């Protein structure tokens, strides 16, 4: 019989196992499919942009003047993280090969360039990952500078491969260092113009912008595009050198100041890309045939660097300022709430003390008036007058006890926090209240975690809190049938730093509308001696660096939960 069960169990397990394997297989296949798709997408984009770039080659070495394709591979890799490493590198390779073979390059040079291009993206993205971790964003100045540094290192390394490739397979007349320099400049500018847009898009997907921000940003980008069209259409005149700056800078500044960095990056990208293709196709100011080609290229490169660096740095600075402002507003709100809480606490304490004192005072006034009445009767009822006067005396003592309790609680500055065992306090208080529970027919169930570490705190205050919670529970259950009255006390490790105490009762519970206010509003129980409002209990627990919360439990009753730190406790109460 046992064997049969075993066999069935085994069959079930293996069936179950194979399903898991199948799922894993599907998952892997899906990942591969997505990866290949990514490689094809990156490859196609790389190919198209590379074809455009190969339209303008540096004379006489034949290096492309601009290489925005480097920004595509590096940007996608930084945006997607190291998981996409292999596929993006593959994309760079399959993009480079046809783009180069369609040009004047031979196969071996193409192979070297493909490897250099793939390596460039890997190095740039790896540096960003190493310096800033995952989730890279351009909303900080150091991140922007980090990207520029990585965009310099990646092409500097891949440029070595590129220069060797040219030397071996094209045998140009220029020194290798010149080839390397051309490669380096063209790829670095490509990365800083394109990668920020891709990085920004990934960040915007993680945290989508508001509709109003999207609308405003796209409006400004459209304006920017229109402005560039206008600039290109202008006749080539000497004064035209100043016009683009005067027209375009305000738009970029607007984007930097009001939108997140992705939109500024998009604006800068539009400007840079326009410069690239107007230089390549000889259109407008940058295509001015009266200037020497090398001057035009140099001018375009300087402007691309200035536009990308300037606008991204501005965007990061504005973004930092916005963040700082947001944090300030947030912390101001926190501070205000804290202050309001303190006021509410003080009011609740004053109300609780007034209420507690008025109880014995009511007894004193009522009993002494009654005593006078009994004495003034004919004949005087001496026996009742004496009893009433005894009650006056005991109510007076009760008021005195209450004030003593207050003094213990708020202390006179001399008492110090000591190591106390929460379980011990609970057991003591439960013991002292056992007659009370017996009288009301309350069953007490304790589930105290053994070896619970001590906490640092004020014994008498914690005793008051426990007493108050137990008495609350006891009184809350007075309205339900005797046989159903149950008090559960549980202590637990919450995590490595905190422990929790839960006090549950089977009473009628706290209405959802009152749950949030029982700690603030005046809410008290009455008993002999010092009774504390829940507001004071919470204050004590908070002074111990913990928290006291209330909720409804599965039994339909109220559940109070105290969380206390195991090691550190504040010494605020003695300050």
């Amino acid at each position, binding site marked *: 019989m046992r064997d049969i069960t075993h066999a069935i169990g085994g069959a079930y397990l293996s069936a179950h196992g194979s399903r898991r394997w199948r799922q894993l297989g599907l998952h892997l296949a899906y990942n591969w499919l997505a990866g290949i798709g990514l490689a094809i997408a990156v490859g196609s984009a790389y190919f198209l942009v590379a074809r455009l770039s190969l339209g303008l080659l540096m004379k006489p070495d034949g290096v492309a003047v601009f290489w925005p394709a480097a920004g595509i591979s590096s940007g996608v890799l930084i945006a997607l993280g190291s998981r996409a490493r292999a596929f993006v590198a593959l994309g760079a390779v399959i993009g480079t090969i046809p783009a180069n073979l369609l040009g004047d390059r031979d196969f071996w040079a193409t192979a070297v360039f493909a490897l250099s291009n793939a390596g460039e993206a890997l190095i740039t993205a790896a540096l960003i990952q190493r310096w800033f971790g995952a989730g890279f964003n351009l909303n900080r100045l150091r991140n922007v500078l980090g990207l520029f540094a990585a965009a310099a290192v990646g092409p500097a390394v891949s440029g070595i491969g590129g220069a060797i490739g040219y030397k071996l397979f094209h045998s140009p007349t220029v020194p290798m260092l010149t080839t390397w320099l051309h490669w380096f400049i063209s790829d670095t500018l490509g990365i800083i113009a394109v990668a920020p847009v891709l990085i920004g898009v990934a960040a915007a997907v993680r945290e989508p912008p508001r509709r109003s921000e999207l609308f405003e940003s796209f409006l400004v980008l459209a304006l920017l595009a229109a402005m560039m069209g206008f600039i290109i259409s202008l006749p080539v005149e000497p004064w035209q050198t100043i016009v683009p700056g005067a027209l375009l800078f305000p738009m970029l500044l607007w984007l930097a100041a009001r939108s997140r960095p992705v939109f500024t990056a998009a604006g800068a990208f539009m400007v840079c890309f326009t410069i690239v293709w107007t230089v390549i196709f000889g259109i407008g100011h940058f295509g001015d045939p009266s200037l020497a080609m090398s001057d035009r290229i140099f001018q375009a490169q300087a402007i691309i660097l200035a536009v990308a660096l300037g606008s991204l740095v501005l965007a990061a600075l504005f973004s930092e300022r916005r963040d700082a402002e947001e944090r300030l507003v947030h912390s101001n709100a926190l501070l205000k709430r804290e202050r309001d809480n303190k006021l509410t606490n003080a009011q609740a304490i004053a*109300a609780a003390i*007034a*209420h507690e004192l*008025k*109880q*014995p*005072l*009511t*007894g*004193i*006034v*009522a*009993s002494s*008036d*009654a005593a*006078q*009445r*009994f004495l003034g009767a004919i004949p005087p009822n001496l026996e*009742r007058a004496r*009893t*009433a006067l005894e*009650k006056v005396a*005991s*109510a007076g003592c*009760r008021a005195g006890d209450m004030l003593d309790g207050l003094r213990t609680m708020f202390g006179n500055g001399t008492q110090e926090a000591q190591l106390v065992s929460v379980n011990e306090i609970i057991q003591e208080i439960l013991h002292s209240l056992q007659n009370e529970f017996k009288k009301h027919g309350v069953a007490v169930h304790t589930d105290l975690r053994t070896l619970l570490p001590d906490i640092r705190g004020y014994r008498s205050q914690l005793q008051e809190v426990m007493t108050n919670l137990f008495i*609350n529970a006891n*009184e*809350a259950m*007075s*309205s339900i049938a005797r046989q159903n009255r149950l008090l559960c006390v549980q202590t637990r490790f919450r995590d490595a730093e905190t422990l929790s105490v839960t006090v549950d009762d089977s009473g*009628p519970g706290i209405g959802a509308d009152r749950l949030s206010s029982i700690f603030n509003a*005046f809410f*008290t*129980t*009455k*008993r*002999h001696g010092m009774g504390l409002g829940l507001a004071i209990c919470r204050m004590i627990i908070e002074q111990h660096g913990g928290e006291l919360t209330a909720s409804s439990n599965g039994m339909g009753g109220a559940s109070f939960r105290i969380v206390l730190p195991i090691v550190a406790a504040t010494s605020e109460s003695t300050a």
Partner: protein
Amino acid sequence: MSDAPTISIIDDDEFVRDALQTLVESVGYATIGFSSAEEFINSNRICDTSCLIADVQMSGMSGFDLHDWLIRNLHPIPLILLTGLPTERFKARASKSIAADLQSKPIGLERLMVCLERALNGLVKQAAG
């Protein structure tokens, strides 16, 4: 003494309840004490009660809850509510009521007598009309 009106006193503080009972008895009324509004409602002494004195803040039903219950269940018993915390909210709620009289604690013989007489006379009028 057996025909004296019976005053029911509800307070969950045993000492206060006891003192109030003694005071009311000292002027010749009969009293019954209850530790909660629920206890009073579930007792068979509602019909004997000519006037109620109840605390506002009690665990379980409050004095105002008791007031609403009396109205809902058509018990025309005048109610004197005592509170240690006469807030504006409580005063406003009491002023809207026809049956409740809100008094702050502590309360002496003089003020309590005025309230009791007003309440009992009101009841006489109500019963006569």
